[in-house]
């Protein structure tokens, strides 16, 4: 094995939410990142994969455990890394050249040396001729090239990329992926290792040699998979598809299992709801009904052009309301789901009411409380307080938002935004 660049040992991370509330995010992470690797970190949104990347960068301090770069523990910024951001994070008031030079700002070089280096990097990332342009004059793909150039200028050992392609359109992203892979594989840049956070499973399999799947709550590295397919990889190659399919089923199984596992031990039956609008859920079920058969999840995501970020919550919601069921990476409608998809708008409300009462006991309690009041009204704050013991503050907001959205859609109750009151009509 090649030299180990970054090592995480027994790392835990928790957020301090105040009022003595602590939310664990990552637990017991042991990782060695060696030179010459292209590592992709996969996980659902909010799974802690971005936090993990920020721990590599030194942007986020660990709560316990040890982090080292070349064997030396680091506090604050890891001296061997540079980072590429999802939103590019360029300084809009600086030109392309000046932005790339910012990568050398903290280095003890003269201005002329910085400029020479920056111009060389601009050449490498394919921005020749755009030195004096401002970011706003460039397309998204070109802006991300500037972000890449700025990161490469300081010649880091490890290049960190936080969902670098997700703000780009499909073609631009594909183009940039190939270019980065080429720069790295043909050693046109001194970077030894790339770590990339992504939610695109296919993207990860296309680019990386090693894939880490982060999941659970608190999250840990569930899967550490080596991808030994030779580059350049063909997305239609059966071996490629097999890996993608495997990752999909690994990830959904865990997603859904996470949702259901909580059922018994959560007190008073409060199950966190996936943050999905009733409209999105309905649309998804209709599309599923059109397909009219058991379907591979991977193909489904591809077909609906959804990335896993949006895709998994919808699946989870459908499963939780027992409108669809998932078996080994395949999804199909339950009889209730099929009826729902075919029903008229009014019938759907009744069907959804039934499913909601089954799956979300809290809703029944809410209706009971509203019924017991003479004016049939109650403040949302009241329900918030009764739920506060079972959920964190952040979860609570999301939970209530989703609950109110579904309840309104199913016409279980109405909601007045101004007074923040729920009421029966």
């Amino acid at each position, binding site marked *: 094995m090649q030299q180990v660049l970054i090592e995480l040992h027994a790392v835990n991370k928790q957020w301090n939410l105040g009022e003595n509330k602590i939310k664990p995010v990552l637990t017991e992470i042991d990782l060695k990142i060696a030179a010459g690797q292209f590592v992709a970190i996969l996980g659902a949104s909010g799974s802690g994969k971005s936090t993990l990347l*920020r721990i590599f*960068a030194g*942007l986020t301090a660990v709560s316990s455990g040890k982090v080292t770069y070349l064997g030396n523990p680091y506090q604050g*910024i890891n001296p061997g*890394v*540079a*980072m590429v*951001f*999802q*939103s*590019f*994070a360029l*300084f*809009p*008031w600086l030109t392309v050249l000046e932005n790339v030079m*910012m*990568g050398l*700002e*903290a280095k003890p070089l003269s201005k002329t040396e910085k400029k020479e280096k920056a111009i060389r990097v601009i050449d490498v990332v394919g921005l020749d001729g755009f030195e004096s342009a*401002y*970011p*706003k*004059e460039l397309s998204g793909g070109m*802006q991300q090239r500037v972000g890449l150039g*700025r990161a490469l200028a*300081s010649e880091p050992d490890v290049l960190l990329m936080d969902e670098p392609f997700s703000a780009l359109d499909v073609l631009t992203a594909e183009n940039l992926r190939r270019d980065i892979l080429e720069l790295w594989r043909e050693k046109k840049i001194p970077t030894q290792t790339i770590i990339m956070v992504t939610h695109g499973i296919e993207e990860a399999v296309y680019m990386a040699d090693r894939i880490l799947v982060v999941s659970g709550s608190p999250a840990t590295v569930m899967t550490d998979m080596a991808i030994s397919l030779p580059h350049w990889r063909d997305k239609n190659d059966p071996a490629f598809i097999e890996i993608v399919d495997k990752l999909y089923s690994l990830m959904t199984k865990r997603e859904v299992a996470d949702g259901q596992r909580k059922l018994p031990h959560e007190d008073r039956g409060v199950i966190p709801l996936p943050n999905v609008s009733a409209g999105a859920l309905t649309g998804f079920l209709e599309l599923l009904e059109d397909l009219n058969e058991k379907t591979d999840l991977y193909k489904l995501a591809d077909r609906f052009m959804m990335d896993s970020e949006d895709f998994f919550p919808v699946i989870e919601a459908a499963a939780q309301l027992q409108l669809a069921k998932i078996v080994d990476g395949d999804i199909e409608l339950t009889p209730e789901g099929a009826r729902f998809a075919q029903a008229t708008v009014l019938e759907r409300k009744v069907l959804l009411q039934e499913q909601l009462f089954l799956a979300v006991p809290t809703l029944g309690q809410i209706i009971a409380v509203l019924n017991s009041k003479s004016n049939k009204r109650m403040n949302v704050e009241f329900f918030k307080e009764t739920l506060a013991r079972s959920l964190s503050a952040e979860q609570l907001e999301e939970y209530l938002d989703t609950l109110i959205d579904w309840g309104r859609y199913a016409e279980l109750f109405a909601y007045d935004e*101004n007074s923040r009151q729920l009421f029966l009509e």
Partner: protein
Amino acid sequence: MVMFVSHVPTRRFGFIDLFVLLFVFALLFSILHLGSGMVAPLTTDEKIVVSTDPADLPYYAGRSVLRMFLAYGASLAFTLLYGSLAAKNKTAEKLLIPLLDILQSLPVLGFLSVTISMFMGMTPGNLFGVELASIFAIFTGQAWNMTFSYYHSLITLPQDLQEASTVLGFNWWQKFIRLEVPFATISLVWNSMMSFGGGWFFLAASEAITVLNRDIRLPGLGSFTAAAAEAGDMTALCWAIFAMVATIVLIDQLFWRPIVVWSQKFKMERTESQIAATSFVYDFLQRSMLAGWLGKTLIVPLLAAASCIMNGLAHWGERMQSRFGRQPRRFGAPNVLKGLLGLVAVAFVGQQSYAGLAVLTSLSAESWLEIVRLGALTFGRVMVATGLGILWAVPVGVWIGSNPRWSRFCQPLVQVAASFPANMIYPLVAILYLRFAVNFEIGAIPLMMLGTQWYILFNVIAGAMAIPNDLSEAATIFKLTGWQRWRKMILPAIFPHLVTSCITASGGAWNASIVSELVIWRENRLEATGLGAFISRVTEAGDWAGILAGILVMCLFVVFVNRFFWRRLYELAETQYHLN
């Protein structure tokens, strides 16, 4: 686009605010106390004679402009320091922001007497102290709003840019100069321009004032006007007004416009916008060889050297910090320091409040009741002035705002009008009042409006311009006409702008009350019954208990009205009538 930004934090009134109120009171009292002790050694009896010869106007204008820029420089320095501290230190933030909030709503002119006596005491025997007091008065009119704007920029700094600069290894100075200041520039420039415009009012008021039976005159446009009014010299008065307008326009064109155009490059948007601000001076400087040469050989190296020094300092500081590690800090050097500071603050507040209360208790219950009654009267005037301002400015503003051609033409005019210190016209109005024997109890209201209504007009224009086209098209399709159109579309759409401007306008009216309830033209004294006139009177007489009580009551009025009326409206505007 263009707006007077007034920052209204939507926090709840808490314990900390109470402490801050007490703190301000203690501060006020101790300054006053010190000042009154120090006035004694001052024996400048040679009175500065201010001429009324129009030929002297350029010199006077220069003096005034110098004062304005010194004050602006001080405000800017204060803004960067105070704003950074408040945004970066959680403990400081808890105290500094409520303090700023209260300072912002204080009627600055009420403090003029207090600060003048303090500064005069600091520099006995010459007018330098009075100069400082004038500069300080302008400073207090400018700094709070600018500081809020900068603080607000800092706390809304995009997370990704912050992370990027951290990963790039920036030290605090590099972060400040490469990220924080550039990001805040656009709103800071706008706020500076508006605050600078508002500063003229304080300049005019502070150049000629009577404190403790002494007429204090500083050579400047404000004192020129006052001298002309005392002498009853109409021609000189008109010249002064002309010179004032010319100065405002010149500074706008030569100084602010180029800066605004330059600041456009700090816009955060990722795509190019269509309309760009223009400035012929900026274009001229851009093209000028000499300016370019000066910039390259003098300004850029100077700035680079300064930046290099600061950079070295920051670097050195960080090395020291890492060498001595974080261990000693854990044992709470800062905690001990915090505790000590807190103790000192509490002791100061306690002792000074107690002493201040002793002065206040020397006033009889009747005089307290009288002061509160006067406060209520002035409050009434302020509300009527704001209401009347709304009444005319809303229809006119909406009309101008929905005609793009007119608004392009009118906006700069309104801006000049808002910058113009209304107190310079008071003598002119006084003549009218005297001729037509107007009851000054009511006549004081238009005087207040002279300065404040422009804020409303300006914001309503901006609000009307911001009504999306599809919204007004929808209103047309649904055949909303006349009153319905106003009620369903226009009023809700401009409501947030209107509330913001009313907060600024009523704040301005409170300030104006101090100069507008007591106006002098030759030997005629026009005086309205109100707290503003009361404060002016006790200031002239040097009645410390009266000054303290008057200011205190006015502050309480302003703070309470802000908290319980304007802030409620503002919250409503933010939540319900926001167009985005």
